């Protein structure tokens, strides 16, 4: 298919919602789908004050469905034996709500959903770490997954190759916080704080964070470890473990990753051309204002690219708007661009 032809199926825009106002603004500003989580450790954004209870989830699903949009529920952490009932209840609750898909990672959760609610569509979460088509085939053969969310580790040619061999559609991350590690396979947070995305649905949890003004500058700590030290006037970001400045062989630098956001606006024509099913926006933990801003820009971009891919280019005002809400005020193409790796 040439880059000039119009694709048969438009790219679906999947936006995050940490609460009902975010869900509504995402729907109002052009999200095709919104993904949410419940108020416990069954999802990977288990933050205080965030997420949906039975009532707001029901209101959210009604709101989205009334406008012809879809709602997905993320149940993408890994239950331990003592907590299994919570995940079982969450799957049942999602099915009862009539959501359009459950996004899951653990085999026990996928297996339960498949057997108990055979009509409930399943997506493999990015936390399922499927980076190759053999892994995708595994989840498709056993659980009938209808879509897979790819970890943010593949270059564009690799994404294309996976897609050509995948039995299901691919959802890729387009914008937002950037995991540098393969999702679902990173234990850095629990190594320092005792809590990880897999076990607890959190990374670098706020309760383990300390901010301290010192004569040397503003210091940020996680679980007691010095993550970064900022000179006066230097912007200080949230001390996510992998985005600190550390010392390796006498050099002090961002040894793992800079505080930066993923932004793939300029890759849209290629993603559309190769037949990617959906673009995911990260950030259920962010404010309704973030959701509004990012949804607006991406809606406009996807529509412009679909109208005329050959003439498409990210507008400066889009980049400006996204820059305002980016971590560290800078963006990257991440692993899609080989040189980043």
């Amino acid at each position: 298919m040439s880059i000039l032809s119009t694709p048969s199926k438009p790219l679906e825009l999947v936006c995050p919602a940490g609460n009902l106002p975010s869900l509504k603004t995402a729907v109002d500003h052009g999200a095709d789908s919104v993904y949410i989580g419940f108020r416990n450790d069954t999802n990977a954004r288990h933050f205080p004050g965030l997420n949906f209870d039975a009532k707001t989830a029901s209101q959210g699903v009604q709101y989205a469905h009334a406008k012809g949009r879809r709602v997905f529920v993320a149940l993408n952490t890994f239950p331990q034996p003592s907590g299994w009932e919570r995940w079982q209840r969450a799957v049942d609750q999602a099915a009862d709500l009539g959501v359009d898909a459950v996004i899951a990672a653990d085999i026990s959760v996928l297996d339960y959903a498949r057997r108990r609610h055979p009509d409930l569509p399943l997506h493999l979460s990015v936390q399922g770490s499927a980076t190759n088509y053999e892994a995708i085939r595994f989840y498709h053969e056993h659980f009938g997954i209808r879509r897979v969310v790819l970890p943010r580790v593949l270059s564009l040619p690799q994404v294309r190759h996976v897609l050509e061999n995948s039995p299901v559609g691919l959802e890729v991350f387009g914008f937002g916080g950037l995991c540098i590690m393969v999702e679902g396979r990173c234990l850095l947070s629990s190594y320092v704080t005792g809590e990880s995305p897999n076990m607890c649905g959190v990374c670098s949890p706020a309760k383990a964070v300390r901010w301290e003004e010192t004569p040397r500058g503003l210091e940020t700590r996680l679980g007691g470890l010095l993550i970064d030290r900022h000179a006066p006037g230097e912007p200080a970001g949230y001390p996510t473990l992998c985005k600190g400045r550390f010392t390796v062989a006498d050099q002090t630098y961002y040894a793992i990753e800079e505080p930066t956001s993923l932004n793939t606006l300029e890759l849209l024509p290629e993603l559309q051309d190769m037949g990617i099913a959906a673009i995911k926006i990260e950030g259920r933990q962010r404010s309704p204002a973030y959701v509004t801003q990012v949804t607006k820009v991406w809606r406009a971009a996807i529509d412009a690219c679909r109208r005329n891919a050959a003439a498409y280019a990210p507008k400066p005002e889009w980049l400006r708007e996204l820059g305002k809400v980016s971590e560290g005020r800078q963006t990257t193409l991440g692993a899609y661009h080989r040189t980043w790796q």
Partner: protein
Amino acid sequence: MTIEARTPKLALGPVLYYWPKEKLLDFYEQIAASPVDIVYLGETICSKRRALNTEEWLALAERLSAAGKEVVLSTMALLEAESELKALHRWCENGRFTVEANDMGAVRLLSVRGASFVLGTGINVYNDRTLRFLAGLGAKRWVMPVELSAETLAAMQAERPAGVETEVFVYGRLPLAYSARCFTARHHDLPKDDCRFRCLDYPEGLTVSTREGQAFLALNGIQTQSAQTCNLLRELAELRQLKVDVLRVSPQAEGTEAVLDAFAACLRGERDPDQAARTLNATLPHGACDGYWQGQPGLRQVTETA
């Protein structure tokens, strides 16, 4: 009254670093004469590392097998390129040795062949339901994810499917994360595609410290490990009581034979685990840790080292 438990077997995990061919072969010559029961072989971190080719790995497997070791071939932890899937096929279809799957793609290839296999640390088995599902596909042994605690293991063991062995990572730098990015190349400001094999310079990885000088991670190509060495030798009684079948020691550039000897002597009841652990810990550049086992942050050393 204590329940008599079978003595766990001792395993050596795959070498996670890039060592030159000579060092690797010398190392395994010593392992052939060591008290280890099971040896996991293969490059699991980076497909650009080619200390040995497939035939040489298989020859080494035969050599260790002839020395009385159970040999298991370990697969890559992160599979991206088609060439890596082709290599995975060759590993899974070797027809001779059991394979340790470190990615769900490997689980698929092994299960469709009807082979029995080991679930490595790269497979997320966090509960008994997941383990039972995978046992149904041919898993005969699972390595507990390193972030799980003794308490979770006890719950898992109570519901463990029949015929499935449990292996615990008891010694070594913990495998914590994998990335598309090569951190060793990045440290040298080199692109990943032109890394000049700098991992060869770091037989135990590159230590990462905070700006206060506290070492806590080690960079090993695309893998991030703990700087601290997990040592559960003191927990031997509990490991036995929990009916753990296999204890995994992860190879380090120096002193691995002494670690295996210490575990073997303690398992035979010839040495005191507390004292043996103290001796081993005294040699560690960044100290020991047992936090995960105790249900705490992994880098902590919880058990008294008095």
